[in-house]
């Protein structure tokens, strides 16, 4: 039987119209996830964060006395050339261990934006270019940097020797401080132990649950009333973009929203500055660092040191910088390695356009998101704020 063509046409148009109207009235539920999407959400959830990984190169890494000693050092401005700069000068606990500035201001103006410290102990590499391979090796570098603390290890040992509390805390953990005047290696041993104590303190700084995490927790527990109230439709749509079309999760993966690796995404250098070479220049420096994992100051001569031994450099790492954690991203502006971006809107625009890199090759491809999608993505990023899971006694000077 021949179906009349006219009726067929009218039927097709009607079906199209009805389904469009239905889609407009009842769009797919923003919070309806497939099983594989739920697994992705679980992978980002704070509940998936394992304990802080062991650091066999630091024998006092998990000693609470070392953390207390390290906390005292962290907040002590006497550890500087002008008596005014402590670790906490830039890593301010009230600002989630950042400083709100574009680049760090120590005894002079630095080159790099201050990174937050929550979850830092999970990273195999420190600094924006990963030029140190442990938390304690990292802690030593700013102390002697001429633009950060501007001090030197002899000055620091003199301070410890002159302070009765430091003397007893140090002796309880390591050995008696050397009699002064002393020479190397005794001075450097003390300096290294200071770094290990600061690292023990920093290992306690871990992120806590955000609204996003409470949403995932309710979702996994199948608590519909809870999770439906937790995120708005726009935030949920932003989350869907984050794990899907916007591809953010490629690098901002895992419960810390970072893979702690290095990527070139064509972020422009700070105004008037040459582009940073980033990761490609840092691997050699780490291998030459006397405080690295295979060096004589490591507490475990049999440590595997796989990250350092198999560290790679190559052209694709020109201009590559570390993926920062996105936890508390809305509260820790400005952004990028030189603080050259001031808002989340600006960052999302950058990834949406994906311009060519000034040096090296950008991994980012244009996303072509609509304006409302970019707003949804930003709304989602704002759900990642939450206080640290660290006891308040550690979040101020002792």
């Amino acid at each position: 039987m021949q179906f009349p063509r006219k009726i067929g046409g009218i039927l097709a148009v009607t079906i199209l119209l009805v389904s469009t109207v239905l889609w407009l009235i009842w769009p797919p539920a923003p919070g309806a996830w497939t099983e594989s999407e739920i697994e992705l959400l679980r992978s980002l959830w704070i509940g998936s964060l394992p304990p802080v990984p062991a650091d066999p190169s630091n024998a006092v890494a998990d000693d609470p006395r070392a953390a207390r000693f390290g906390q005292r050092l962290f907040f002590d401005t006497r550890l500087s050339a002008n008596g005014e700069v402590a670790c906490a000068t830039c890593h301010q606990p009230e600002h989630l261990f950042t400083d709100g500035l574009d680049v760090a201001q120590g005894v002079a103006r630095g080159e790099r934006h201050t990174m937050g410290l929550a979850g830092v102990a999970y990273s195999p590499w420190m600094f924006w270019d990963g030029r140190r391979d442990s938390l304690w090796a990292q802690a030593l570098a700013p102390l002697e940097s001429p633009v950060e603390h501007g001090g030197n290890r002899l000055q620091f040992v003199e301070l410890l020797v002159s302070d009765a509390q430091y003397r007893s805390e140090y002796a309880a953990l390591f050995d008696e401080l050397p009699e002064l005047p002393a020479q190397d290696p005794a001075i450097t041993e003390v300096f290294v132990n200071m770094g290990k104590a600061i690292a023990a303190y920093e290992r306690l700084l871990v992120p806590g649950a955000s609204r996003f995490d409470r949403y995932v927790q309710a979702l996994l527990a199948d608590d519909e009333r809870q999770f439906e109230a937790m995120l708005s439709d726009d935030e949920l749509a932003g989350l869907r973009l984050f794990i899907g079309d916007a591809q953010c999760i490629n690098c901002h993966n895992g419960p810390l929203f970072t893979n702690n690796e290095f990527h070139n995404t064509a972020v422009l250098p700070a105004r008037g500055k040459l582009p940073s070479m980033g990761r490609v220049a840092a691997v050699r420096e780490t291998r030459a660092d006397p405080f690295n994992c295979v060096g004589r100051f490591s507490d475990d001569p049999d440590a595997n040191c796989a990250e350092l031994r198999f560290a790679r450099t190559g052209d694709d790492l020109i201009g590559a910088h570390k993926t920062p954690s996105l936890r508390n991203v809305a509260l820790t502006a400005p952004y990028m390695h030189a603080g050259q971006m001031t808002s989340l809107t600006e960052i999302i625009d950058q990834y949406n356009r994906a311009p060519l890199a000034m040096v090296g090759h950008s991994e980012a491809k244009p996303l072509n998101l609509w304006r409302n999608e970019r707003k949804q993505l930003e709304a989602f990023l704002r759900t990642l704020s939450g206080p640290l899971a660290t006891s308040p006694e550690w979040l101020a000077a002792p």
Partner: protein
Amino acid sequence: MLAPVGLAQEQGAQRTDDGMYLISYESKLQPITINRIHNWVVHVETSDGSPVDDAMVTLIGGMPGHDHGLPTMPLATQYLGDGDYLVEGMKFHMNGWWQITISITVESSYDSVTFDLQL
């Protein structure tokens, strides 16, 4: 670029491009998880099934969709016997489609094979 459909996380042995060897690998980290450095054992045998014990095994990898390589430079550090080579320093830092090329050099002969891997 899209990954080939239906990739298993690990596949069986694959013949090298010029057909000289049959190569398989086993990850010592199960399942393969991103952001964790780990080891593989690469097994090399000739097409008639005899283990190859004097090969230089090299491994490179990357993500064709993202124009970057592995975050590490894995190395075959030890011959374990029976055609098995220990490869240390494997690490993946993104989910998605990866390609791993394993090359075998024995004296002056060279052959290689590329495995697709979906994480």
